[in-house]
């Protein structure tokens, strides 16, 4: 591979205008995901952050075809993943795998670990029981589990070890992309660090790309090259991680950041100014205009009537806010420095 190719990785997955709606009681519609677009590049990580109801998990499940997309495209390499059937679908599923949030719920309690890790191999590659078992024995050490773990049942593992099993299972078919849906959220901080380091090591060794869904900005900053912030089914800001965290532009991004800053004067200052009150409104029949307008301290009349479109504010950094250029961005220098300035 040449240096040029390294510098500009090719896209693996392009999601174009993905929309997932669910019917709700009374003929209403849940706008879980509403026109989401992003690109994942080879060997890179895209983080999707947002609160509950933002549609980040539904986006992941829509990409994985675990929920039907209402409209939009999911292009894997050059093919429409959502239109695939039969053998082509099986072949494509080998290349895109998933790790779920709850390592206690995502493993079938009645089957041995080895069988669970082998499942994608048996289903997608048609391997015999023995051949699959051999592959499992090779896989388990790469996620830090001894090969004998194959003979144990899920309840005999700790939470972190179960998540390692889930990762082994996702790795089994040597995928190009793994979708991690809140994959470390249920774990203790110490175990979370182990899993994050494991994911990062696997990425470096195998060139795997990740879509990393999380509510934890610190974790996303640590692991991801790009970040997309979702609010009520839409991406409101998206860009390279460094660009986003050095100068976030959307008021909702500021709110998320102010809730995540470590304790200290900076946190107090940001919280007082930018932390939004209340909770996100329901995604059932959301209001017209900017969906954040109802909670935004900077909203003007235009925000409540006209939907803001994403526009570039820095290289590959987009924000969907009418007032992105007008309102002053937060000052992230620590408390004392701000006072002296």
């Amino acid at each position: 591979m040449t240096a040029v190719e390294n510098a500009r990785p090719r896209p693996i997955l392009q999601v174009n205008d993905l929309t997932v709606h669910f019917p709700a009681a009374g003929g209403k519609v849940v706008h879980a995901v509403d026109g989401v677009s992003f690109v994942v590049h080879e060997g890179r990580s895209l983080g999707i952050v947002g609160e509950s109801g933002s549609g980040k998990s539904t986006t992941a499940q829509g990409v994985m075809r675990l929920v039907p997309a209402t409209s939009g495209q999911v292009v894997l390499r050059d093919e429409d993943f959502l239109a695939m059937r039969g053998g082509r679908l099986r072949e494509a599923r080998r290349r895109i795998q998933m790790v779920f949030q709850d390592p206690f719920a995502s493993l079938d309690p009645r089957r041995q670990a080895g069988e669970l890790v082998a499942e994608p191999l048996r289903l997608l590659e048609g391997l015999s029981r023995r051949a699959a078992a051999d592959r499992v024995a090779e896989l388990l050490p790469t996620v830090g589990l001894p090969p004998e773990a194959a003979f144990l049942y899920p309840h005999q593992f700790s939470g972190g070890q179960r998540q390692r099993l889930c990762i082994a299972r996702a790795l089994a078919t040597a995928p190009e992309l793994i979708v991690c849906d809140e994959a470390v959220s249920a774990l203790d901080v110490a175990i979370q660090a182990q899993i994050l380091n494991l994911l990062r090591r696997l990425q470096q060794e195998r060139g795997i790309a990740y879509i990393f869904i999380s509510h934890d900005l610190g974790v996303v900053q640590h692991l991801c090259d790009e970040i997309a912030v979702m609010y009520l089914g839409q991406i409101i800001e998206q860009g390279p991680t460094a660009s986003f965290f050095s100068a976030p532009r959307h008021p909702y991004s500021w709110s998320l950041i102010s809730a995540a800053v470590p304790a200290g004067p900076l946190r107090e200052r940001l919280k007082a100014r930018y932390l939004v009150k209340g909770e996100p409104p329901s995604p059932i029949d959301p209001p017209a205009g900017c969906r954040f307008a109802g909670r935004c301290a900077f909203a003007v009349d235009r925000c409540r009537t006209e939907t803001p479109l994403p526009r570039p504010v820095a290289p590959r950094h987009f924000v969907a806010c009418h007032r992105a250029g007008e309102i002053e961005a937060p000052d992230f220098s620590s408390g004392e420095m701000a006072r002296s300035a």
Partner: protein
Amino acid sequence: MIPILSVRDLTVSLKRASGTVPVLERLSFELDRGRTIALVGESGCGKSMTALAIMGLLPDGFALEKGSILLDGEDVTKVPPARLRALRGNAMSMIFQEPMTALNPVFTVGDQICEALRLHQGLGRQAAMERALAMLKAVQIPAAEQRLHAYPHALSGGMRQRVMIAMALACRPKLLIADEPTTALDVTVQAQVFDLLKELQEEMGTAIVLITHDLGAVADITDTVAVLYAGRCVEHGPTLEVMEAPRHPYTRGLMACSPHLRLGAAAAGVPEPLQEIPGLVPPLGQRPPSCAFAPRCARATDKCSAQDQPPLAAISPDHEVSCWHPEERAVA
């Protein structure tokens, strides 16, 4: 002034067919009125067990071996069951991790808050309802009058946790135990709930025991911190001092584990590799009298596994650590 809560030498064990297994060993701490202590550690380190022991709600099979728990001078380990019931929900109360399952789905929010008031404070229905309404307003629930008659399922997670807080604080308890109260909530809601707790504490003077696995998230609302590992307190001190200069390798490891947000100019660089603590908390029954952290510790020497874990030793006036090789202060 005597402390609101004084836990001394608390030792809890699990009775098994094969013998008794220690769960908590010689845990001691004190908490003054209006103060907050954080109990920090991974799952399985005994944080929740400490909370249940204080509330007198140890699960079947777990028994208090020795030690005392003084609530405003009264030893709750020795009081008769009726007295303990009178204290629970009145002088001391608890909020749980999962507000979804901790509320009874078939009663309205108002009824559930009233229950404790009528039981413990002998208020009439009318008076209890008025207090319940005042509490809902105090926890900043919008449209409190209507929410009083709402059922739990009609509320969002954040609202439910506010209702839990309203219930727990309705009788103005001396002590509130909060077991990971915001883990199930969104980040911005978490920040609001912590602010609310702090505000109500200042108003009522309630002492709070806050259980968490992430010290960084709660550092600004706690005064002291006790770090638990495998049922033992390994470090205990003022939060700021422990945060700035953690002396036990486990405390240091815990702090280094969670990725810290880098903002502004600091965001440009490549992230440093995350430090991790290898391995797992040893399960019950596999905890030697020597330091239980030694197998996961980079600083461990032969001495650590050969000798019993040292008792907590003062490093500065209020800061104690239990380690043969505490970290140097300067490195912080």
